[in-house]
């Protein structure tokens, strides 16, 4: 049994939270699973070649539009707060990323995943799997209909709870932009206690993972709504060539 307390982990988080960049620390001791799974050497700089400046393309045979609605995958309505989650996928220059793949997975309203390894004794919802996919539209917009996931315990330390979140997997215009992350909900009291969220040691960067309640994206008498835009880091073919031009000018 894990005897490390939340107080001990919180003290470790405070000690480890020296100012950081926009991305999480890979070496973040309070998240115990990271200890043996982070590289100890610096990432090596590579000038991207063409294959690293492009992404696969996905088409109508790859994704059924119905996969964007996680509430209709079974014979009945899942339990929980029905909601729309929508936003735009953008590159660092603010250009939309159209027709690209977005995948999501999440716990149900009780904080339980349909995954054999999830042993949390919360109820499984027979009407909710918690997996969805969609392609962004021409404007880079994605949209899912789902239910709000619950927080869940995860045994990093004694009585450790993850803030409620939806896992997102996002493709940009390039290999360099590939992103897997987690979207959170505003005001979650578990934020300060969570070593995964706190591994991003810059507060403004952490805030970028929190969706905004947006009454404009609700559906009247049907669902609440959250908006969350995703900005991808890294070069793609257009941005890299622009960067080379700047270097030539310098």
């Amino acid at each position, binding site marked *: 049994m894990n005897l490390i307390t939340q107080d001990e982990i919180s003290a470790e988080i405070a000690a480890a939270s020296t100012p950081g960049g*926009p*991305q*999480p620390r*890979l070496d*973040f001791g309070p*998240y115990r*699973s*990271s200890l*043996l*799974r*982070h*590289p*100890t*050497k610096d*990432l*090596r*700089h*590579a*000038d*991207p070649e063409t*294959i*690293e400046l*492009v*992404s*696969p393309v*996905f088409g*109508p*045979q*790859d994704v059924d539009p119905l996969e964007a609605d996680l509430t209709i995958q079974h014979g009945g309505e899942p339990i929980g707060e029905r909601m729309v989650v929508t936003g735009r996928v953008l590159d660092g*220059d*603010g250009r939309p990323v159209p027709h690209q*793949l977005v995948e999501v*997975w999440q716990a149900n309203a009780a904080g339980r*995943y*349909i*995954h054999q*390894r*999830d042993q949390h004794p919360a109820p499984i919802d027979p009407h909710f*799997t918690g*997996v969805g*996919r969609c392609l962004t539209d021409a404007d880079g917009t994605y949209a899912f209909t789902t239910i709000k996931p619950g927080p869940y315990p995860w045994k990093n330390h004694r009585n450790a709870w993850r803030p409620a979140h939806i*896992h997102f*997997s996002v493709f940009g215009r390039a*290999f*360099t932009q*590939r*992103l*897997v*992350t*987690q979207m959170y909900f505003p005001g979650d009291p578990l934020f300060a206690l969570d070593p*995964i969220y706190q591994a*991003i040691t810059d507060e403004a960067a*952490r805030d*970028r*993972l929190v969706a905004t309640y947006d009454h404009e994206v609700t559906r009247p008498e049907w669902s609440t709504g959250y908006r969350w835009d*995703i*900005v991808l*880091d*890294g*070069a793609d073919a257009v941005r890299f060539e622009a960067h080379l031009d700047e270097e030539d000018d310098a």
Partner: protein
Amino acid sequence: MSLPPTPGQTVGPFFGYALPFERDSELVPASHPRAVRLHGHVLDGAGDPVPDALLELWQLDEDGMVVQAHGSLHRDGYTFTGWGRASTDRAGHYQLVTLRPGAEEPGGAAFFSLVVFARGLLDRLHTRIYLPGQDDALAADPLLGTLDDRDRATLLAHDEDGGASLRFDVRLQGSGETAFLRYGRSS
């Protein structure tokens, strides 16, 4: 205009019922006359297997051309899309079935591009898997030229079974740690 990026987070332990899909690791069917098996282990800093890692392969076609074909998620058995996905098994082993990529330029080095995700890994890692048997091209490669011999060796695949297989291990940490790459991203 420059927007601050959305941070990454770990893929966590529960992606296994969401991200894998049928024939995700078969960029070509194993029956393809030039199919090659690319396989190996993902290992942690103690040398133990990582049974909950997810790898993605991005590559040029055999002629060194970028592929832009639909059908990666719904494979028809004929269309090569240049992209695939593989989960590690309980022994930390992965395998992909694909074609050997060509080099982008004549005389250039041919390589696969690899993204690594895992529980415990807080953000994705990028690396390259260089094909063996192209000594002159490897010697002239701009990236490999910046690495010492030990790091360089971590990026080379090895032929097995007379070339029917390529072996490449990913070591997240410690002895033989894979050289992971950045491309001018802000981290």
